[in-house]
């Protein structure tokens, strides 16, 4: 029999004493789309980075068309025809350069020509964008001016420039709308037809089943199982990913919803937000969902005094607020757990205790001088209450795992008695175990009478935790669901700008359990 296009066997990779991959394996045929699934941190990206020459494996073999291969740099991988669309868009885009230059970026490092003709550059870039049906993107503009989705398309275009043998798509659809995803799939179909092998990583199961031929599941750095996409069911795959059936144990609530607490009316800002009105009661968890780029983060920041409002009012506990700066919001009793915790929420080089005490320093320095004992005591208290895994209040946060860091980002608000908590994607990049802890925490806050607003693009999680769900699309709230009404399909429909009248009959509510994203 002919050799498979690609074969990776018994791959091991560790970073210091973290083992990211152990006994990982993967294979790919010509003209096949092979999907790679696994929870956060399962090692998907790491495996692909080994394949693309960013890391080199500690152990294990890679064979291309049956012949063994050592990939020491991204350049060597490219010389073998292996191209990658990286998950973290901004690590691969050079914002200062033009779109055309970004698309043809790989040709600069290894190329042979010395002078570069701008015209040829633009022509080549246009040709590829046309293939992607995205020739509305001007090739001369700076990449910095693109939207996230457009940047993603540029990265995809970059892989298409070359006659690739293998293209790795690491979560390419995360920032794309349904329509844009559909365009991408037709491109992938085209690649298949040309005999290119595609590796496709995604957390959205439906599309994995739509585009994939085979599905491989990874967990904890190991290969778990490989399915035939036509034959397998979504439940099987999820079970294989989690090592257990997905339980709905979260869906328990025992607290009372009280009087209205937050009232927002007609809120608009200078950017994306247009005329939003909603509210949240004491003890209520309100989910705000929407696709990436819908404006959830903007809304959270607007409620926190981070952006300039052009109209609208915010009332909290009966008091109208004028928020010029986050400090006003904090004084009024609002806390924000921001989306990008390392950038916006935490001081990762500083100790846990310094982070925990920071929003309310006055409490820890009654006489101007810091009372370090009180600070440490408080940090210990937080560690206990949130079950943060660390041995010491003075360790810099950079040594904590993502989930534990996120707990600190929440815990730092515990020194204040806030009325309203805003959570922006609090489970982003957090593993399953920590996720459950965080949900519990949010629940606890709600039971003690706080209002919580939960911003997320993980729709099923929002359904799980929220009492009420608002759907955002393009800076507006387009629909409100009670928990009972909310299904993933209905929400997704509104979130991608659709309306229910036309499609309601086709969406089968019982498929809810199939469409799980992890």
């Amino acid at each position, binding site marked *: 029999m002919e050799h498979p296009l690609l074969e990776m066997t018994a791959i091991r990779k560790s970073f210091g004493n*973290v083992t990211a991959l152990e006994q990982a394996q993967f294979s790919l045929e010509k003209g096949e789309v092979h999907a790679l699934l696994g929870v956060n941190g399962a090692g998907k990206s790491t495996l692909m980075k080994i394949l693309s020459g960013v890391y080199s494996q500690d152990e294990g073999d890679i064979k291309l068309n049956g012949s063994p291969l050592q990939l020491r740099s991204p350049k060597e991988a490219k010389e073998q025809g292996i191209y990658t669309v990286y998950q*973290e868009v901004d690590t691969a885009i050079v914002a200062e350069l033009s779109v055309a230059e970004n698309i043809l970026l790989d040709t600069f490092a290894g190329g042979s020509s010395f002078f570069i003709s701008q015209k040829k550059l633009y022509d080549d870039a246009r040709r590829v964008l046309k293939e992607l049906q995205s020739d509305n993107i001007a090739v001369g503009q700076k990449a910095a001016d693109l939207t996230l989705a457009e940047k993603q398309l540029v990265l995809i275009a970059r892989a298409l420039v070359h006659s690739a043998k293998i293209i790795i798509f690491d979560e390419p659809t995360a*920032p794309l709308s349904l329509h844009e995803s559909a365009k991408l799939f037709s491109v992938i179909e085209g690649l298949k037809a040309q005999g290119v092998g595609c590796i496709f990583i995604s957390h959205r199961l439906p599309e994995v089943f739509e585009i994939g031929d085979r599905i491989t599941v990874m967990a904890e750095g190991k290969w778990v199982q490989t399915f035939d996409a036509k034959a397998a069911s979504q439940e099987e795959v999820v079970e294989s990913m989690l090592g257990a059936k997905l339980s709905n144990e979260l869906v328990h609530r025992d607290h009372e919803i009280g009087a209205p607490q937050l009232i927002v009316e007609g809120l608009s800002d200078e950017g994306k937000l247009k005329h939003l009105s909603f509210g949240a009661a004491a003890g209520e968890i309100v989910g705000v969902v929407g696709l990436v780029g819908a404006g959830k983060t903007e809304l959270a920041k607007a409620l926190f005094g981070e952006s300039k409002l052009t109209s609208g009012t915010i009332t909290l506990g009966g008091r109208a607020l004028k928020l010029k700066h986050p400090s006003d919001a904090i004084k009024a009793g609002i806390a924000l757990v921001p989306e990008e915790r*390392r*950038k*916006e929420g935490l001081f990762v080089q*500083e100790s846990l205790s310094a982070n925990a005490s920071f929003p309310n320093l006055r409490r820890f320095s009654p006489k101007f001088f*810091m009372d370090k004992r009180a600070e440490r005591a408080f940090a210990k208290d937080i560690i206990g209450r949130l079950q943060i895994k660390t041995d010491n209040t003075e360790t810099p946060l950079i040594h904590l795992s993502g989930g534990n860091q996120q707990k600190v980002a929440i815990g730092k608000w515990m020194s204040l008695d806030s009325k309203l908590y805003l959570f922006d994607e609090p489970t982003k990049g957090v593993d399953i175990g920590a996720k459950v802890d965080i949900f519990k925490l949010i629940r606890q806050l709600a039971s003690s009478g706080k209002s919580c607003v939960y911003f997320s693009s993980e729709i099923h999680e929002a359904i799980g935790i929220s009492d009420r769900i608002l759907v955002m699309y393009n800076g507006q709230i387009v629909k409100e669901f009670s928990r009972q009404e909310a299904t993933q399909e209905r929400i997704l429909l509104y979130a991608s700008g659709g309306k229910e009248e036309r499609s309601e009959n086709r969406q089968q509510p019982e498929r809810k359990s199939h469409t799980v994203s992890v």
Partner: protein
Amino acid sequence: MQAVEKKSAVKTGSSPKEKAIQFLFKYGAIALLAIIIFYFSTVSDAFLTYGNFSDIMRSISIVTLLALGVTFTLVVDGFDLSVGSTMSLSTVVTASLMVWYDMPLWLVLLLPLLIGVLAGAVNSFLIVVLGIPDLLATLSMMYIVAGLHRTYTEGYSIYNNMPLTSGGTAPGQLSEAFLWIGQGQMLGLPVPVWIMVILVLVSYLILNHTRWGRVLYMTGGNAEAATLSGVNVKKVKFTAYVVSGIFASMAGILFTARVGSGQIDAGAPLMMEAVAAVFVGYSVLGAGKPNALGTFFGAAVIGILLNGLTILNLPYYAFDIIKGGVLVAALAVTYVYAKKKFSKS
């Protein structure tokens, strides 16, 4: 899209090499200083005397004040290249207030400080409001303030009873009380040393043991997170630059009192030295960040080296090699350690 969170490979030093690096990081600078002092004292009896050390301390007092200001801006992740010029301006203004205008001492001490405040305020306007990066904004200010101070004196240094361009001689003199600040003694130590020690301690207390210090460090560590924790980052940066300006003008006042005249361009050469002192200070006791005690220590190391090398009769032109070498060593220890600690594999 999530951040790639990387855990440090090794938390507690394990291999001997790691341990050695960690030791160097914590005590390297202090060990180095001890060795230097020991060496010089074997070479010359004059070195390890009370008198010589009080002279060394006095000789570093001006640069230390300047460096304390730089420390504050570095703490908030800024950078102030204009301190040298601000010090020059303050030097000539201080002298001119006495020599040209015969002003009372309190005004002579107050007005230069206001100039420092103003310089800091303009710096922060450029940085915070216009959004010009710190380095570039303060570089421009360095030129502007230097030009202003020369224009103010028309290129002259200012000294007692100097002749005026308009004819006649200047009415005033630097008063004894004023000169005492730079040249006097108190309780067995030169007054500039007292001033320096007090300001170092105050800066240390503020930076390491008060609410403000915490806010400054946290702002420098992550301005965005500080904003979202309720800190007005603009105000904090403003404060840091103003403090830096004030320290620079105090350095200028001290310089005038020490030298007994308002020398033109006095501060320019001290700027780089102050920056060097702060960075050598990074490596003290493993702080790895700007800190007041480290800054003092950095200035002291450089001062002691220069003093010792003069005693050794090393030619003056080799001093810069030593100065740069110490700086590289301190930086290497700090950053090689940091790289090990937060290594990206």
